[in-house]
C-alpha cells in the first residue's frame, strides 16, 4: 500500500514538474535577448489547450498514428520511474535496470518515428529519418557513458551506479552527456525547437501532422525526456545519493535547474549547426564518454 502510494506520488512529481523545464529554458532565452518572454508555465497552458482540441486524423493513417505517441509517452514515464531521485532512490530498482532505461528511450523514439511515418507525408518521413540517424550516434555515446558508470562502480543497477561520484572522469562524462542531452532533446546546436522552416526541422518535422491530445502527449513526453536527462546528468556529477534527504533533494533540484539554465544559455549564445556538422559534435560527445570509460578502466585496474 505504502509502496503504491509512494510510486503514485513519484509519478505525479515527474509528470507535473516536467513541463516546467521548457518554460525555464524559454525564460532564460528571453532574458538573454532582453525580452520579457512567455510565462514559465506556458507549456502547461499549451497542454491544456491542446487537450481540449479535437484530433484531425488522416484517412490513410492506421491506429498507430495515435498509438505511437501513447506508447512513447508510457515508455518515457516508465523510464522516469526507473531513474533514481537522489536519496529517495528509484521507484523500481533491480539488477540491470539501466539496460531497460536505454531500451525504453529507444522504444519511445521508435514509436514517435513510427507515428510520423503513418500519414505518409514527406516531412514526417524526412524528420523521422533525421531523428533516427542522429540517434544512432547519440545512443552510442549514451551507452558508452552507462558503461563508464558501471565500470566505475562495478554495478549495473542504476541507483548504485549513480550513488558514487565518478571523480576525475566526471567532468568528461558530464560534457559528453550534456551533448547527448542536447541532441536527444532536439535543442539548439542540433535542432531548433522554435523553427518552422520545414527543410531544417528534425523533431518538429516528425510531429507536424499531429494535433489535439496526441500532440499534447508528444509534447509532454518530450518534456519528461528532458527532465530525465537533466536528472541523469546532475546525478552523474554530484553524489546526491549520499546526502541527507532534504539536502539531497535540494541539491538535485538546484542541479537540474542549473542544467536547464545551461541549455537555455547554449540556445541563446550559439547558432544551429549545419546538418553535416552534427555527426562531428556527436562523435565528440561519444569520444568524451569513451575517455571517461578509459579513465574508469584505468582507475579500476
Amino acid at each position, binding site marked *: 500500500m505504502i509502496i503504491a502510494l509512494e510510486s503514485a506520488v513519484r509519478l505525479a512529481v515527474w509528470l507535473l514538474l516536467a513541463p516546467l523545464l521548457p518554460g525555464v529554458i524559454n525564460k532564460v532565452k528571453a532574458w538573454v535577448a532582453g525580452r520579457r518572454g512567455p510565462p514559465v508555465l506556458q507549456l502547461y497552458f499549451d497542454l491544456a489547450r491542446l487537450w481540449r482540441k479535437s484530433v484531425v486524423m488522416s484517412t490513410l493513417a492506421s491506429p498507430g498514428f495515435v498509438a505511437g505517441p501513447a506508447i512513447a509517452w508510457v515508455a518515457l514515464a516508465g523510464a522516469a520511474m526507473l531513474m533514481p531521485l537522489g536519496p529517495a532512490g528509484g521507484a523500481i530498482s533491480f539488477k540491470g535496470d539501466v539496460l531497460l532505461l536505454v531500451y525504453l528511450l529507444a522504444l519511445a523514439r521508435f514509436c514517435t518515428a513510427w507515428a510520423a511515418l503513418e500519414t505518409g507525408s514527406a516531412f514526417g518521413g524526412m524528420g523521422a529519418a533525421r531523428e533516427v540517424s542522429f540517434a544512432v550516434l547519440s545512443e552510442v555515446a549514451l551507452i558508452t557513458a552507462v558503461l563508464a558508470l558501471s565500470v566505475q562502480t562495478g554495478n549495473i543497477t542504476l541507483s548504485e551506479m549513480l550513488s558514487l561520484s565518478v571523480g576525475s572522469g566526471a567532468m568528461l562524462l558530464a560534457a559528453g552527456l550534456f551533448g547527448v542531452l542536447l541532441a536527444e532533446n532536439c535543442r539548439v546546436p542540433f535542432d531548433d525547437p522554435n523553427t518552422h522552416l520545414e527543410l531544417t526541422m528534425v523533431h518538429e518535422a516528425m510531429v507536424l501532422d499531429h494535433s489535439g491530445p496526441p500532440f499534447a502527449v508528444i509534447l509532454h513526453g518530450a518534456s519528461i525526456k528532458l527532465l530525465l536527462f537533466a536528472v541523469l546528468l546532475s546525478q552523474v556529477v554530484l553524489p546526491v545519493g549520499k546526502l541527507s534527504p532534504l539536502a539531497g533533494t535540494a541539491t538535485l533540484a538546484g542541479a537540474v535547474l542549473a542544467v536547464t539554465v545551461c541549455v537555455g544559455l547554449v540556445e541563446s549564445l550559439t547558432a544551429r549547426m549545419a546538418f553535416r*556538422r552534427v*555527426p*562531428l559534435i556527436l*562523435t*565528440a560527445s561519444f*569520444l568524451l564518454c*569513451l*575517455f571517461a570509460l*578509459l579513465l574508469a578502466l584505468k582507475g579500476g585496474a
Partner: protein
Amino acid sequence: MGSTMNLLIGLAMGLNLLALGSGRLSAIIRATAVQGVVLGVMPLLLEYTFDWMVALVALVTVAVKGFVIPSLLRRAMRAAKIQREEEPLIGFVPSLLLGAGGTIAAIAGARMLPLLPEHAGTLLVPGSMASILTGLILLIGRVKAISQVCGYLILENGIYLFGLLLIHSTPLLVESGILLDLTVGVFVIGIIVDRIQRAFDSLDTRKLTVLRE
C-alpha cells in the same frame, strides 16, 4: 607535481582532438597556441629547484609558441582571406576518430615501453606520441597550407614533450635552438603562404602538385 603535469598533458591531448575536429582555421591556430602555452610551462613543473635558465626557456617558449607564431599565422590567414578548411582529404569525423584511436593506442603502447620508473606513471610519453600522430594526421589530411603548418607545430609539440624526458641531461640551449628554428620556419611559411595565394589565388596545396613550364 605529477598529477598537475598529467592534467596539463591531458589538456594538451584534448587540444589535439579539438584541432582535429574543428574546421575553422582560427580555432586550429588557437588550439595550437594554447597547447604551446600548456607545454611551455611544463619545464617549470619538472624542475625541483628553481633555475633561472629553465624559467627563461619556459618564458621564451610560451611567448613564441603561444603568441608570436599564432600571430604570424593569423596574419597569413588575414592576408590570404580564408577562414576555414573546406574539403579536407580526411574528413573531420574520420580524423577525429583516428586521433582518438591514436591517443588510446599511445596510452596502451607506452605501458609496454621500458621507461624509467620516474616516467612510467606520467603521461609524458603517451602525450608526445599522441601529439605526433595528431600532427601527422593534420599534415596528411588537410589541404590548406595554414592547417598543415598547425599540424607541423603540433608534431613539434609532441617532439618537445618527448624531449622533456631528457631535460636533466640535455643542455637547454638545444631547446632554445629548436625554438628559434621553429620561429624562422613559421616566418618563412608565412611568406610562402602569401606567395601561394598570389600565384594560385587560393591556399590549396593540391595545386602545387602539378609541374608546369
